[in-house]
């Protein structure tokens, strides 16, 4: 059995833990400070695990397999599992495209033993959110079919060029799946194609999902509550390590810029993204981005040129992903011993409450815990290193 070589043991198999002893009251009898402290420590721990590995699957192609069966109407998540999921997915999509601007997502529904692709692989999150918002009122019918869903995702992912990172994220509310054939063959195929499948279970652990995730190097997790659910979803935002079979190649891309013919106004033209739709965006506009190869106009980047197939991006889009590759160095926790009286970044005065301060290994400046988290989660640049001419490029050279 796979479970035997799985190092993670279940909670009920571990030793007896006195979890309540970890929480201590502060002087005024409140628990809040102690809990907040634990949350921060957990955040730091997670951050420390992230190591800047040089090889990541940066051009991600992710299929979202969403269970829309009867089980999603359960009310253990408020108001219902489906509505809670949709709300979280909306935030997830925005964050995902913020962090992975040249990646693509597609959405597949699993409903009534069938799989239905409601959104093709695309890089525009507004389109996906629009599709998701219509799901609110779908009828939640029957059982899902995991196999059909996976097969459908695989058939699209197969066609992608070899340098693309292929992923599937399954959100499974049901404890059963109703499949037409042997699902282990499907899992075998996914493995061969190098598709990484992760599963988030909303109910309880299911053997087939565990198998799927283990075989394809994905992650399988069961949610505890909606906050945990959000955490698990956001784990998927960071690009995964590149799959072994991932081929590296140079990809031809276009960097369009707005035409600047000085003095004269640009003519009113239609952009290629809205040319065949009758919705609001389809208007004649004067500005836009022009494909350097075929001069088709687009109103938004990044996009794949419809006429010549060139991927069009702007330089900041690529730059947005650089921090995954060149992360700021992790700070070292040291006991506070009057090394400095103020946090270098935020100017917070250190007092008796600060038992630990955080030291950057490169620039040797001291920071408070809030700045430590802020620098590594959001900023990705150490303020101490970036203000010193000796260290400001250190992230690049490491």
């Amino acid at each position, binding site marked *: 059995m796979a479970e035997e070589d799985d190092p993670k043991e279940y909670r009920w198999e571990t030793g007896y833990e006195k979890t309540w002893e970890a929480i201590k009251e502060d002087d005024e009898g409140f628990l809040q400070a102690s809990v907040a402290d634990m949350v921060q420590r957990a955040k730091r721990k997670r951050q420390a695990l992230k190591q800047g590995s040089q090889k990541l699957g940066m051009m991600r192609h992710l299929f979202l397999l969403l269970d829309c069966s009867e089980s999603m109407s359960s009310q253990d998540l408020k108001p219902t599992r489906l509505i809670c999921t949709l709300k979280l997915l909306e935030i997830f999509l925005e964050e995902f495209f913020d962090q992975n601007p040249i990646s693509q997502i597609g959405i597949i529904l699993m409903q009534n033993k069938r799989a239905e692709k409601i959104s093709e692989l695309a890089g525009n999150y507004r389109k996906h959110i629009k599709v998701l918002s219509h799901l609110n009122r779908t009828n939640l019918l029957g059982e899902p079919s995991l196999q059909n869903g996976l097969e459908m995702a695989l058939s699209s992912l197969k066609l992608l060029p070899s340098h693309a990172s292929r992923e599937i994220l399954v959100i499974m509310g049901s404890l059963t799946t109703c499949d037409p054939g042997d699902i282990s063959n499907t899992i075998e195929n996914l493995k061969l194609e190098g598709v990484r499948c992760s599963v988030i279970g909303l109910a309880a652990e299911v053997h087939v999902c565990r198998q799927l995730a283990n075989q394809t190097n994905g992650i399988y997790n069961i949610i505890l509550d909606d906050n945990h659910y959000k955490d698990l979803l956001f784990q998927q935002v960071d690009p995964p390590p590149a799959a072994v079979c991932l081929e*590296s*190649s*140079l990809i*031809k*891309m276009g960097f369009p810029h707005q035409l600047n013919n000085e003095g004269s106004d640009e003519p009113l033209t239609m952009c290629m993204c809205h040319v065949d739709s009758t919705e609001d965006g389809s208007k004649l506009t004067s500005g836009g981005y022009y494909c350097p190869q075929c001069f088709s106009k687009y109103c938004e980047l990044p996009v794949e040129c419809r006429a010549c197939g060139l991927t069009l991006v702007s330089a900041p889009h*690529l730059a947005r992903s650089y921090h995954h590759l060149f992360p700021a160095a992790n700070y070292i926790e040291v006991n506070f011993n009057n090394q400095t009286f103020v946090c270098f970044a935020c100017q917070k005065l250190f007092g008796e409450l600060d038992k630990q301060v955080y030291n950057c290994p490169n620039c040797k400046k001291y920071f408070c815990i809030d700045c430590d988290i802020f620098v590594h989660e959001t*900023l990705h640049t150490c303020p101490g290193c*970036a*203000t010193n001419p000796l260290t*400001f490029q250190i992230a690049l050279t490491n």
Partner: protein
Amino acid sequence: MNNIVLPDETQTDSSSDDETSLVVVILDSNPGQKMLRDSPHVLTHCVDSIIAFANSHLMQKAQNKLAIMACHSKTSQFIYPGQGKHTDVRQVDGQYEVFTAVEKITKKNLAKVLTADSSTVTKESLLAGAIAMALCYISRLQRTKPPGATLNCRILVVTGSSCSASQYMNYMNVFFTAQKQNVVIDVCALDQHLSLLQQGCDITNGLYLKVPQLQGLLQYLLWVFLPEPPIREKLVLPPPLKVDYRAACFCHRQLIEIGYVCSVCLSIFCRFSPICTTCHTVFKMPALPAVKPKKKKKI
């Protein structure tokens, strides 16, 4: 000026009194920048203008907040509100005490920074780091503000330095963080055109202005950078320049329209090379003659 500022006051009064706006001014005091090497006394003029600008900001509303930073050659520092406690400032000539305090503390701390180190080795100021510090400061204020209060933050960078691609990643990181935190970055270029910082202004919806005449610095600061972002829409400000977002290739630092991107580390090259110079990935050789077939694959 009065008739422009007035609508803002009536607006905020009716909506909420808890609205505070914070301006972090980053003054580039690096003695290595060209402008200061040519004529060091310009700095005095800049400091005076900035103090006047800072006081006008504080004057607009009692809740308004201010921080001034100096970006120096080897480090950056907050010079107002400085570290430690300040001695009480008494009223002089009927001037509002806070104004006197701003002027005294700023000048005192700036003098400290300037005398501590005056090497003119580094030509390029490390503005990205100073902005990063300002963002940490802002995020602390956002964390500790009383619940229900709103704090609108912006950063004003006043610099005569040039900018090159060496800080590109740090710049991009701070711009995207600022965008996420709703912090507006304004840039007032005194000497040279700054294309990277201009991109930052565009990303965060800030204003970029290259001052045509240094003599009139205060005028530009007051007219262009003093109004809050919501009011700016109603003013006739210098028209935004078109920002050039073309990428520079890693091999020759030239702006390119069509380039090749490494699928592993996203480095940009202007022509095909078998090995990525950044991450040392070896690319499949067959792709070399197959530049055309690759195109076909995508179509």
